[in-house]
């Protein structure tokens, strides 16, 4: 008679998984709440530069987006690889300074805001870091003419070089 008898039910005891759905649901709700669905499809490649003095854009409803970058592969087949301007979801293809497209765009976006917020409209410029300033200056001139003066140069928060400089 051996002293160490094998126990009858060998193997690991079962872990109670009844609370697993709870945990998963918690994660699920977190992601559901924090999700913002992408509304516009960006048709130009934009890698915004990094900066240290960035601030969060508070009211999303006041913000309209202007993208400047080289078109993605599908679009490039139609328009070539030169940098393009995209206003919210519309690509524009205007020669020279795009006064007309930007004017229309600003009027259209401003119309959507309530009367009290019309002068707080912010233009978020999401511009690829390798684009030449000529294109950016054109857009800025067009925005000035359209009287959309609050702009936001979109940038990612830069952490790396902080220690070196302070």
């Amino acid at each position: 008679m051996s002293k160490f008898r094998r126990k009858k039910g060998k193997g690991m005891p079962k872990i109670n998984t009844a609370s697993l759905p709870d945990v998963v649901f918690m994660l699920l709700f977190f992601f559901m709440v924090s999700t913002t669905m992408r509304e516009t499809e960006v048709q130009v490649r934009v890698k915004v530069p990094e900066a240290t003095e960035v601030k969060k854009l508070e009211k999303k409803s006041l913000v309209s987006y202007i993208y400047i970058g080289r078109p993605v592969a599908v679009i490039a087949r139609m328009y070539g690889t030169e940098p393009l301007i995209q206003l919210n979801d519309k690509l524009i293809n205007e020669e020279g300074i795009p006064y007309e497209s930007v004017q229309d765009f600003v009027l259209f976006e401003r119309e959507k805001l309530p009367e009290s917020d019309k002068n707080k409209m912010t233009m978020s410029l999401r511009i690829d870091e390798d684009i030449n300033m000529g294109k950016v200056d054109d857009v800025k001139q067009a925005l000035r003419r359209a009287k959309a003066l609050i702009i936001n140069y979109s940038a990612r928060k830069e952490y790396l070089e902080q220690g070196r400089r302070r």
Partner: protein
Amino acid sequence: MPREVPEINGGSLADIAFLLLIFFLVATTMDIDTGITRLLPPEPEKDQETEVKVNKRNVLVVLINRSDRLMVGGEEMDRFQLKNKVIEFFTNPADDPNLPEMVETEIQFPPGSSPLLPPDGVWRGKVSKGVISLQNDRTTTYGTYLHIQNELVAAVNQLRNEFTQLYFDKTYDDLNQANATEEEIYNAIRDIYKMNISESEPKNSGGLN
């Protein structure tokens, strides 16, 4: 005795939840919009002469040329030196006649908001008349341009921060603008250290594009 309700098997609940979870994980974009907010100057009226006389000592020309090199007030400079240069320009600590004029100014703070202010809350001190003129070429890279903008903003932010730290023992960004008193402080400090950055009309500084 009430009849027992048969238990529903909850084993597949986790599967369903996982499926949803994975969907949202994939669909989520966590991009918070951040950036540097600036104000564009209004377009000049057609008949308006835009000749504003500014004393030469009050202007610091920051020029980024088409090979992304930086020139500040006539000398070539590294991007990381710019911030200190701008701080010196805006404060003029040694009363240098080549740096901007400092004008004695009274600025109203909420009374009693800081022990370092007189009881009536009026700050008396010197405010710079300096203006930074930022110029770029059409072929300057946007990334470089934004880095320079960032340095200029960083310089003014540091000045504001130092002031807020000294008088109110917090950072400038921590001032809560929803609070009426703190908003007043916020605006008063903004008036002491103004973000005077003028962007010139775009022009080509010559050469091939």
